[in-house]
């Protein structure tokens, strides 16, 4: 099967030649459709750099990234914007909801931008709100709801266009454990039931344990890669901790 995403030998350096700093080097991997991939690694390992490049907001110094066989960094600025609109969904750590819009309006914003007719928008929004259990909150404003509800709203917004790839950047970073679990379970269900492809950057082993596969990055290069396969989530969690210990990642969430 043709992979959804193919990262080919990318390298990213910042700064001028004399004081250049290499954030990523020789990174290659593929993601198939329907995968739930976690990217882990200590601070400064290059996780966010990688995510930004997949999000097409940053471009690699060398190497190529293909999505459905198209090299995404060879596109023009306007085409890139359209590409993001049609193929990518984002979940941010700090939600990034618009205060001036209701929950419903926040969720439908990507559909409005894609110029979907109003009638269809209503149907789609109701459906996605149910998936995240926020159908009662639709008329509320962001300042009226909790952090967990905000993040679920943000996730609903990311998924409402049914993007080919969902990129989540530390989505549980600002949530308490109950809210985090709710969100992660929703994502996990989506992945299993709708065959959604999700890529999540996290440094939290608990959050990562919901993924089906985890790529570890250290000092800008791929360090190792593990699959959950048939393990229980708990066993997978333990395996992640072990690896983090060997590559020296933070294990702040163990306790």
């Amino acid at each position, binding site marked *: 099967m043709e992979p959804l995403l193919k990262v080919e030998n990318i390298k990213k350096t910042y700064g001028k030649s004399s004081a250049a700093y290499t954030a990523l080097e020789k990174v290659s991997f593929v993601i198939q459709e329907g995968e739930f991939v976690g990217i882990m690694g200590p601070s400064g390992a290059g996780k966010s750099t990688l995510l930004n490049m997949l999000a097409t907001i940053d471009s690699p110094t060398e190497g190529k990234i293909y999505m459905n066989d198209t090299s995404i960094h060879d596109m023009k600025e306007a085409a890139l*914007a359209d590409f993001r609109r049609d193929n990518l969904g984002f979940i941010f750590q700090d939600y990034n909801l*618009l205060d001036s819009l209701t929950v419903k309006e926040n969720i439908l914003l*990507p559909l409005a931008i894609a110029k979907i007719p109003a009638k269809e928008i209503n149907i789609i929004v109701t459906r996605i709100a149910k998936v995240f259990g926020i159908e009662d909150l639709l008329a509320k404003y962001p*300042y009226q709801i909790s952090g967990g509800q905000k993040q679920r709203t943000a996730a609903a917004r990311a998924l409402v266009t049914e993007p080919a790839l969902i990129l989540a950047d530390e989505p549980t970073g600002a949530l308490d454990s109950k809210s985090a679990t709710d969100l992660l379970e929703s994502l996990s269900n989506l992945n299993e039931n709708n065959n959604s492809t999700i890529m999540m950057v996290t440094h939290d082993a608990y959050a990562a344990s919901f993924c089906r596969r985890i790529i570890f990055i250290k000092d800008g290069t791929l360090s190792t890669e593990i699959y959950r396969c048939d393990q229980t989530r708990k066993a997978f969690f333990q395996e992640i901790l072990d690896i983090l210990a060997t590559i020296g990642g933070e294990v702040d969430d163990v306790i």
Partner: protein
Amino acid sequence: MTLFSLARKNIARNFSQYFLYIASMVFSIVIYFTFVTLKYSDTIEEKTASSQKLDSLMSGAAVILIFFVAIFIAYSNSFFMKKRKKEVALYALLGVRNRQIGLMLFFENLLLGLVSLVVGIVLGFLCSKGFMTILIHLMGYDVMAPFTFSGSAALNTAIVFLLIFLVTSFQGYRLIYQFKLIDLFHASKKGEAAPKSSIIVAILGVFLIVISYWLAMQDLFTSKVWEKVGFLMTALIILTTVIVGTFLLFHSVTGFVLAVIKKSEKWLWKGLHLMTISQLLYRVRGNARTLTVIAVLSATTVTAGGAVYSLYYNTNDLVKTANPNTFMYQQTDAKSDKQVSTILSGTKYDENIEALSVTFNTKELNSASAFDSSDKRIYTVINEKAYNKLAAVQHKEKLHVNNDNAVILDIGYDKRFSPKYKGKIITTENNNAITFQSFKTQTVLNAGTAGIAVVVSNDQFKALRKDGEALKYRVIGMDQASTGLSKKIAKQLPEEALFSSAPQDFQTSIEGVGSLLFIGSFLGLVFLAATGSIIYFKVLTEAEEDKPQYNMLHKMGVSTKEMRKSIASQVFVIFFVPLVVGLLHSAVALKAFSSLLMMNLAKPVLIWMIAYTVIYGLYYVLAVASYNRIITQNNKTEG
């Protein structure tokens, strides 16, 4: 490291942040210094005969200027301080004593003030020549503006601004004591709800504005309301209702309109419409106060400037109406006539007119509304032939007067106070009766020499000879005449010749109105610049706040073009809704003004409004460009 050097380094390092603040202070100082320089200028004082009047006018304007500049600086100071709350909180968190922080802010502010003062005075000195040239030109003089530095103006400016800076610096000092640490950290963050709009409040707002408009449109002299409530009270009521109404308008009506738009899902849920409208809804209501201030400031500037400019614009017409002939005087003796003739050259026409000064019984002209209700009036009578002769050289229509009838030439005619001439009969002492067939608001004889003139038929003129005193007028028309020539002629004539001169009248009125226009436009410019800057600051603050939102949209796949469009339309509403309201207010005020003066001010007012809108529009373009720059830059760096 001393506090003073810390403050100094602070400024040096964050120069870009400080730049706007310094720029607005320097601007205020330049304006004030220039103005005071003009006030102290010898050149202008020497040239103006009415210098006493001009001087007091300038002093009054200077007070307004101080007041305004103080408010403006206070506003930019608070804007500037808001940006720095976090920094201040950080110092406190790191364990710097409150007193030290306070002193640091105090010195920093004072230092900024001193730097701006020096820069402002230097720039002001350079600008003052330009402004003086404009003033001299507007007042119709032909002298070179000098390039001198006025020590007393510098001293005056320094004292005024040092006082202002001391106050703002003290404000800075107090900042740390005023707030809790937590507030300082969250100063820029706010999650307030968009207030609900109520129809009742919206209707009330519109109602208040309508009332004030209605009151303003009432005729000052004939209206019952003005009479009953009193002049000052009515003016106050108009002012209050219009300001409160404007506030409610912004607070509720715009919100209401936007909320209605928000109901139309089909249109709203397309592209960035949703975002644009919601942001506006959120902003317009939250900023009702600022928008009101801007609308009122714009209205004031346009009204005052428009009124003064209209007067200036109409000066020439007024002088021409009152002086249809370039020169005119009553002939007394042949000797002076001859002397005048030797001075004159290049006249278009030079006529002798026979006239009568007749006292009439004018009881029939009196009415309740008229100001003047004397039973006897003296009119200057000329015959139809003389009128038509002058009308021909002055390019006016010919007139035909029936036998016992007459036409009165009353340039001061006002339908509210003047007699209803048509059909009225006046009689001479010998009971010669004349009926007014019509009246004209134009005359062919200079009003300064002849007063109100009455045209009668040639036969009637003969009959009236025995009722009045015979007069001989000399009327002179020239294409171009200087005040110098006018003065020379005046010297040759005795007082009782009642010499009237168009160039001299023009010079006198233009001196008064010209300085008024200068002061008006000067203050207008200041108000405009300040208004523009206030919105500009506001828009930039919003741009800073909106960074993450636009970054999210960027990631969501919204193109830069679409974002620019949304930004431009949001800023457009913030800029132009108050402008339109302000222009509407001033249009009503100027309409009232023009009907009070019985003048058609449409053209000069329109010119003035367009000029204002154009300069204001430049601020809009600048604001949108800065907004876009902030957002695009953030999208690039944030990734």
